[in-house]
C-alpha cells in the first residue's frame, strides 16, 4: 500500500509547507481557534494543580491535543453529537460544557456529565473503544430519521487495537453511517508506544478493511485538522458515509496524574515533541500573517487565566450531592428495594447514624 505523508499546511515553525486554504487569509477562525487552544491549556494547567493539591481526582491531561480537539469542536454543528473518550475536555468545553463542570467531572461528581449545555453529547467513555459503537448508534438514528447530522467520536492510538473499534468501523462502512472517527495518535497508550500497538503503517489504514476513507493528518496543525474534519463532516451530511481521521500528535503530559511517563520514555523524545507544539505553531503563523503580537498574547493569557480561575473557584464551592442521588437516577422509577436501601443510606449518612438503625425502622 502506498503511504502518503500526513496532511499538513503548517510546518513545525508555523510556516506554510504548502499554500494554505483561502479562508486562512482572514483572521476570524484562526483567532477563535487560538483562543480556545490557549484556554484549553490553561484549564489543563489548573486541573493538574488542583489534583496535585488534593482538590481534584485522577485527571487525564489534554496537553498536546489542543490542535485536534479545538478545530473539531469549532467545525461541528450544535446539532451534531460528540461521543468522546476521556481526553476531549477541550472539545466538550467549546461545545458548551461549563468549565466548572469539567472540573466537577474530574472532581468525582456525576453532575459533571449532566449539564443541559451538553445537549445529546455522550459523557466520557472510560472503558476503551466502547464509545466508537455508541457513535455508530447515534449515526444510525440520524440515518433512520433522515436527519442531516453527524456523530463525531474520538479514540486513542491504543484504543484502535480493540475489537469495538474495528466492529464500529465495519458497521459504519456497511451501513454508510454519518460518523467521523478521529484517532488522537499521541504515540503512547500509557507506557505502550505506537510501534508495539500495531504493525499497520498508519492507523488510518484500518479504514481500508471497513471500506471507508482513512486519512492521516498532522494533529499539531489546526489548519490541516480543519480541512480534514470539514471534508469528513460534509461527506457525512451528504449521505456519503463515514471517515476515519488519524491525527498524529504527541502526548506532552503523563497518561493521567496517576502516571509517571519518565519511567518509560526519554526526555529527548519529549523535548523534540515540544518543538511540534500546536499552540506555538499556530501563534507563529498568526504573527506571520500580522494577526497577532505580544500585547494580544498577554491579554489573551490574562483573560483565559481569569476564566479558568473563576471556574475553579466555582467548582470548589460546589458541595457533594446528597447520598440520595445514587438511588435517584438509576432507573426512571426506583424499585421498592432501592427505596428501602435509600432510607438506610440516608440514616447511615447522618451523624451517628448506622445502616442497621435504618433497616429496623
Amino acid at each position, binding site marked *: 500500500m502506498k503511504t502518503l505523508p500526513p496532511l499538513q499546511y503548517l510546518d513545525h515553525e508555523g510556516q506554510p509547507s504548502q499554500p494554505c486554504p483561502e479562508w486562512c487569509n482572514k483572521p476570524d477562525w484562526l483567532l477563535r481557534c487560538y483562543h480556545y487552544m490557549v484556554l484549553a491549556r490553561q484549564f489543563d494547567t489548573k486541573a493538574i494543580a488542583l489534583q496535585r493539591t488534593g482538590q481534584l481526582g485522577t485527571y487525564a491531561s489534554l496537553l498536546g491535543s489542543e490542535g485536534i480537539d479545538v478545530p473539531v469542536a469549532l467545525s461541528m454543528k450544535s446539532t451534531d453529537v460528540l461521543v468522546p473518550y476521556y481526553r476531549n475536555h477541550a472539545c466538550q468545553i467549546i461545545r458548551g460544557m461549563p468549565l466548572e463542570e469539567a472540573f466537577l467531572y474530574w472532581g468525582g461528581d456525576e453532575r459533571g456529565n449532566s449539564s443541559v449545555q451538553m445537549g445529546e453529547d455522550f459523557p466520557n467513555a472510560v472503558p476503551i473503544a466502547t464509545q466508537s459503537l455508541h457513535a455508530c448508534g447515534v449515526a444510525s438514528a440520524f440515518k433512520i430519521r433522515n436527519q442531516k447530522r453527524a456523530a463525531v467520536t474520538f479514540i486513542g492510538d491504543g484504543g484502535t487495537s480493540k475489537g469495538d473499534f474495528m*466492529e464500529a468501523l465495519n458497521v459504519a462502512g456497511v451501513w454508510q453511517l454519518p460518523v467521523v472517527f478521529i484517532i488522537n495518535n499521541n504515540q503512547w497508550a500509557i507506557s505502550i508506544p505506537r510501534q508495539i500497538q500495531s504493525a499497520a503503517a498508519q492507523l488510518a489504514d484500518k479504514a481500508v478493511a471497513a471500506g471507508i476513507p482513512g486519512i492521516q493528518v498532522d494533529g499539531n496543525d489546526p489548519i490541516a485538522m480543519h480541512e480534514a474534519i470539514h471534508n469528513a463532516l460534509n461527506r457525512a451530511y451528504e449521505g456519503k458515509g463515514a471517515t476515519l481521521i488519524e491525527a498524529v500528535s504527541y502526548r506532552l503530559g503523563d497518561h493521567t496524574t496517576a502516571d509517571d511517563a519518565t519511567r518509560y520514555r526519554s526526555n529527548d523524545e519529549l523535548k523534540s515533541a515540544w518543538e511540534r507544539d500546536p499552540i506555538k505553531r499556530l501563534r507563529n503563523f498568526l504573527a506571520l500573517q500580522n494577526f497577532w503580537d505580544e500585547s494580544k498574547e498577554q491579554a489573551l493569557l490574562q483573560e483565559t487565566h481569569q476564566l479558568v480561575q473563576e471556574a475553579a473557584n466555582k467548582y470548589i464551592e460546589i458541595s457533594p450531592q446528597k447520598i440520595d442521588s445514587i438511588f435517584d437516577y438509576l432507573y426512571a422509577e426506583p424499585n421498592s428495594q432501592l427505596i428501602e436501601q435509600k432510607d438506610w443510606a440516608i440514616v447511615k449518612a447522618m451523624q451517628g447514624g448506622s445502616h442497621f438503625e435504618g433497616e429496623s425502622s
Partner: protein
Amino acid sequence: MKHNVCLLEAVNLALASEMRKDEEVVILGEDVGVNGGVFRATANLRDEFGLKRVMDTPLAETMIAGVSIGMASQGLKPIAEIQFMGFIFPALEQIICHAARLRNRTRGRLSCPLVIRAPFGGGIHAPEHHSESTEALLAHIPGLKVVVPSSPARAYGLLLAAIRDPDPVIFLEPKRIYRSQQQEVEDNANALPIGSCFTLREGSDITLVSWGAMITETLSAAESLSNEGVNCEVIDVATISPLDVETILISVRKTGRLVIIHEAPRTGGVGADISAIVAEQALLDLQAPVVRVTGYDTVMPYFRLEKHYLPNSQDIIDAVKQTVEFV
C-alpha cells in the same frame, strides 16, 4: 383479536403490535430481517416495517449492543436480538458499563430505553454454547431489568412492557417452551407489569418459586402432588430483577415452606438471593428449611447429558416431600 399461539409467536405478535403503535421502535440483530430470526421470532416484520426498522446486522454482538445504546440515547427504542444467550458475553461490557449506567452517570440527561432479547436455557439438544442460563449475572447489575416469560400470554404482555420501559431490559426467552404450548392470546396491546410475580396456582401447604422453562416442570409437579393431598402455591417470578419480594414473602408467610426451582447453576443463582431474603424477613414463619432445586455448578453439558443436568418434575416432587415432611 385473539390468536392461538405458542410463546415464540406471542413474541412476534408483541413486536409487531408495538412497532405499529410506536415509530421509534426498531429491531436489529443477526438474521432478524429476511430470515425472520433463526427461531422466526421476527418473521415477516421486515416485510411490514422495512429495512430501516428491521436491520440485519454484521455478525458482531458487541456492536449490536453498542449501536443499540447509541440509538437509545437518541430516543429510538431498539430491540436487539442476541441469537443465543451463550453469545451475549461479548456484549456484556456494553450492557454493564454503558446501557445500565447511562441514566445514572448523566444524572438523567441521557437514558437508554432498549430491550435485548435472547433465547436461553437448555432442553432442545442444541450445540455447545447454546443452552446456558446466566440470568443471575445480569440480575447482579444495577441499572438493568431482567425479565423471563413462561407462557405465551406473559411473553406478549411482558415484552410490550419491556419495550415501553424507559430503562434497559434484558428479555430472556426460554427456548425449550418456545413452541411446546399453545395459548389464546388477545392482541390488544395490553402490557403486563414488570417487577411483579405471577401466582399461577394457589395452595396452602408449600410455596414453589420458579421462572422460565422450569415453570412447566413446577406446574406438573404441583399437579401430581395435589393428587397426593399436597397443595402447592406456584409463583412465576417472571421479573428476575427487580424481584417482587412482597408476593414471595406473603406466600411463604402463609405456607411456611419454600422450594425454589431454577435451571441455572446453584451457586450465586437467583435462588440464593430469594432464599436469603426469606431468611432475613420471614425466618420465623418457616416451618422447614428452604430447599433449592437447581442445575449443578458445572458447565452446561453437551446435549447427550443435558437431561441429567436439568431439574425435572420428579426432582421437584422429591424436594417438596422432603420439605413438607420436615419436623
